[in-house]
């Protein structure tokens, strides 16, 4: 109960209700990746614009639960302005953290840090991961 409250309290609900960088652009200079979580219907698209190894823009669109949608919004805020190398390290660490795997705690995950609470809810790890996995795919695709 308290776990759940902690999980929802901080950033998650704020981003769920007021998503940042939401809406896709019909701009071919963006790399677009679409991921679905077939078991629950979460459906997220991430758009990333990379220039000179910098993430110059990152956008999201989709539907799903609060954890899924908010983590997409947090992702975009975290990534804009990062170098692709840094972005990769952060995303990789984030995905390990939520999956309760060993990760490098010294790396600053900024707002995304709060998703550590998801570890108490193994069934929700997927919800917290799909936007970030889509972003990783976008980096790989580039």
């Amino acid at each position, binding site marked *: 109960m308290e776990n759940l*409250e902690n999980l929802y309290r901080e950033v998650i609900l704020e981003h769920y209700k007021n998503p940042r960088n939401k809406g896709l652009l019909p701009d071919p200079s963006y790399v677009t990746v679409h991921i679905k979580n077939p078991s629950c219907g979460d459906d997220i698209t991430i758009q990333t614009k990379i220039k000179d190894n910098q993430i110059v823009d990152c956008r999201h669109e989709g539907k*799903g639960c609060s954890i899924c949608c908010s983590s997409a919004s947090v992702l975009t805020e975290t990534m804009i302005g990062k170098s692709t190398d840094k972005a990769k390290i952060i995303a990789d660490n984030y995905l390990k953290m939520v999956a309760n795997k060993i990760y490098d705690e010294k790396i600053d995950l900024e707002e995304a840090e709060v998703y550590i609470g998801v570890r108490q809810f193994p069934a929700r790890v997927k919800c917290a991961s799909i936007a970030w996995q889509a972003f990783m795919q976008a980096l790989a695709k580039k």
Partner: protein
Amino acid sequence: MEQNIWRADFPQITEKDMIYLDSAASSLKPNSVIMAVTHYDHDLSANIHRGVYKEAYEATFLYEETREKVARFINAIPEEIVFTRGATAALNLVALSYGLKNIHPGDEIIVSELEHHSSLLPWQNVALKTGAKLVYVPLDSEGRITIANFESVLSDHTKVVALTYISNVLGYITPIAEIITLAHAKKAITVIDAAQAIEHMPVDVKTLKCDFLAFSGHKMLGPTGIGILYGKQEYLEIMEPIEVGGDMNDNVNKYDAEWKDSPYKFEAGTMPIASAIGLGTAIDYWQEHNIMAMEDHVRRLRKYTYTQIKKIPGITIYNPTSETGLIAFNIDGVHAHDASSYFAEHNVCLRAGHHCAQLVMKWLNIEACLRASLFFYNTFADCDRFIDATKNAVKFFHKMGF
């Protein structure tokens, strides 16, 4: 204290604090089934239809005895009972074997938006591969398949009618006997998905006159990994196996081979023997108890729970008139997955998502929903815990600002 004469048989709920309201996904297993599976694994562990030693003989006996029990249970003969991996594999077998061979361009296959993906996708695949047309029975305003709506799509082109007996999301009972009669008048074959029906009502294939009927062991107190395809002998005989390999053949030559008679030609390789034996014991359980009394109890639980849940502001129920133990609902403004974590924290096990029935979600115009399924081993105390958790969930999500 309320008495529930069945509950003590289910260690999963008597040995811990768990409000299990997800029996429509998988039922709990009684001690007798657990023991039957263990007996095979612990004492026999031998393959069937092959060895001549005592353990192999007993394993074969128990496996084939289950086939007889299943046949008696649904009023068929053992030759009409094919063991499969589950309802999904059973329905795929009909579509891949009978369907791909006998359906032609211009033929029509009737399905509905209430279908579980296991009943829908095998026929969608047949339609795509053969050029046949998939035709949907229009659902009525509650989301039910009605006889009149079925008649509106039945035609001289109808070759297959593949429908669910009971919807796994809304819990409605399809008027399947009437539909089968109408379909046969057009010489269409009928494939009934009884995965949700077999554990809620007596099913008699001779009265229904269906051509095929499928169900899973794990929803009717049996183990996972085993299910049943019932098929009329005249169809099973003409159908080709979709898997070939060990045990299903009579005579193997260098360039051809002959199959055993049905049902054996459909059971290639080593089958889930322990699970099959467990299913036999699950059927014993049904035979030893009064299914009508069990279902009466489920309906009382459902009525009580529905009445209480309906009173809670901020809840939408999608199947108010359902006649079986399901309540499909959402907390307004809260995604089903967010809600289900709350229930999980309170040891209330519900299912959240699209329930392998995306067309039902689309018909309801929602992304996902929660489903509570009540079964005979549930108690009014379980229902009260669920009702309280629902009330508190509404408050919780309201407080959190959803």
